C-alpha cells in the first residue's frame, strides 16, 4: 500500500478497514490501539509499527503501548480512548461491511474501486491501468 501511495500520490487513496479474525486473539486489541492512536493523529504510524512487529503480539498483546510510547503519544489518553465503545463499534461496522459483500471472509481482502482484487497482476500495474483509463 505504501508503494502505491509513493507511486501515485495524487491518484490513489488507501482506506484501512479492520477485520480482526477470531483466531487471532490479539488482533482486535491491536486494532483498537491503532484507532486510538488515530485520535492523536498517528493512525498510520501506529499501523505500520504494529505491522512491522505483529508476530510479537502473540506473546505481548500490549506491545502497541510500547510502540505508542516510542511514537511520543499520550499513553493515558490512548488507554482512555481504547475503552471508548465507539471504537469497537467502528470495528464491528467495518467487519459487517466486508460480510455484506458476500465475498470470502479472508484477510487481507482488497477492493479496488469497489472490485475485488484477484491478484492476477501486480497491484501497481492494475492501479496504473485504471488511472490511465480514467485519463
Amino acid at each position, binding site marked *: 500500500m505504501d508503494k502505491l501511495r509513493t507511486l501515485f500520490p495524487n491518484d490513489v487513496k488507501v482506506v484501512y478497514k479492520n477485520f480482526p479474525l477470531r483466531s487471532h486473539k490479539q488482533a482486535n486489541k491491536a486494532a483498537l490501539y491503532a484507532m486510538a492512536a488515530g485520535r492523536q493523529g498517528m493512525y498510520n504510524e501506529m499501523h505500520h509499527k504494529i505491522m512491522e512487529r505483529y508476530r510479537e503480539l502473540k506473546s505481548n498483546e500490549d506491545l502497541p503501548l510500547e510502540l505508542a510510547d516510542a511514537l511520543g503519544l499520550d499513553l493515558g489518553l490512548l488507554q482512555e480512548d481504547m475503552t471508548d465503545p465507539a471504537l469497537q463499534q467502528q470495528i464491528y461496522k467495518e467487519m459487517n461491511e466486508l460480510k455484506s459483500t458476500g465475498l470470502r471472509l479472508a484477510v*487481507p481482502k482488497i477492493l479496488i474501486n469497489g472490485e475485488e*482484487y484477484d491478484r492476477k497482476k501486480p497491484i501497481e500495474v492494475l492501479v496504473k491501468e485504471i488511472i490511465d483509463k480514467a485519463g
Partner: protein
Amino acid sequence: MNKGKFALIISFTTVILVGQALNLEKPTERKGVKATTADGRKILVYSDGTWAIAPKEIFNIPVGDSFYIGPSDAKVTVMEWMDYQ
C-alpha cells in the same frame, strides 16, 4: 477356445486399435458444477442451457469513519480489510 469367444476378443482388439489409430480422445469427465470461477465470478446458466461468466461485481462500500490516506477525490480507491496477526 470356441469361435464365439475368439470373435469377441478380435472385436474388442479391433475397436481399441482403431480408436488409437484415429487418436480418439476420451471425453473429459465433469465432476460437479462450480457456481463460480476461480476468480470469484458467478457462472450464469440460462434456461436454454447456455451459460456465461457474470461481470465482476462492484461493491459500493463507503469510506465512512475508516482511516484513509490520500486525496479524498482520488481516481483510485484501494480498500483493504486486514488484521494485525
